[in-house]
């Protein structure tokens, strides 16, 4: 009947693992901790959402995910959904969310995919002073 969320900050990535039934009644249980962590962490740009433990997802749940996608977009970041089963994937598809959020098979894959840009940039930034 409820949702359990675990939130971690990893550099510019907000990693969240969500479990349970995500519907209109429980949406705030996912939205609120994600919003709180996002506001508390101005360094955060990307969101990785592990949905492996999600046993139910309705259009309200999709709306929460898209709300977080927009938050990431506003900071020039991306949202990656990890470990989506066939049902979750179909909901993302039907809702059109799949055109906006990305899918990854594991947290490691998602983090690696988000890392190069960050490393690339920080490397560039670090090199800049020494190069000219």
């Amino acid at each position, binding site marked *: *009947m409820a949702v359990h969320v675990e939130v971690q900050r990893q550099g510019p990535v907000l990693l969240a693992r969500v479990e349970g*039934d995500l*519907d*209109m*009644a429980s949406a705030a249980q996912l939205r609120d901790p994600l919003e709180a962590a996002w506001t508390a962490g101005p360094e955060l740009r990307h969101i990785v959402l592990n949905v492996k433990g999600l046993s*139910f997802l*309705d*259009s*309200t749940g*999709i*709306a*929460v995910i*898209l*709300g977080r996608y927009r938050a990431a977009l506003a900071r020039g970041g991306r949202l990656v959904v990890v470990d989506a089963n066939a*049902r979750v994937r179909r*909901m993302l598809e*039907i*809702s*059109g969310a799949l055109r906006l959020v990305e899918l990854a098979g594991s947290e490691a894959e998602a983090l690696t995919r988000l890392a190069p840009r960050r490393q690339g940039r920080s490397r560039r930034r670090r090199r800049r002073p020494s190069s000219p």
Partner: protein
Amino acid sequence: MNGHPCPAPRRIGPEWGQSAHSFVLCIPADPANLAFARAVVAAFAARLDFTLDEIEDVKLAVSEMVANAVIHAYPGGGGPVWVAGRVHDGALEVVVEDRGRGIADVARAREAGYSTLGGEHLGIGFSVAEAYMDALEVDSVPGEGTCVRMRKRPASGAASSARPS
């Protein structure tokens, strides 16, 4: 909610009593009852030869329609929602009915992306429910209420223990 909390629903007619395999559930339009409505419909659907995945489809569609009644039907807050089910012709028929404000333009309301509410509302409740069921009909009268009738037949074709008359 005034008067009797659960008067007889309007559009769930006498044909629903013709078979032993039917039910009518009345619950207050409250988010707290969404998971309950899903559990009830899943328990009922168990008498048909649905796969677990098909039962999840039914739960999702019913949940979307009950959520609509909770969000849209009673702007003043609170009112009854009926969820009825029956085995008909080897298929599951589910109805979600409210006595809320109704929908003026049903065709428009059913369009994906159309919502009269802003914020995070995506306007995809109807399209999701439709995608997961075989058929969905909306019957709504402004000021009187909304009745959504859905049907789904087990892909396996046969009804198991249910012997609808």
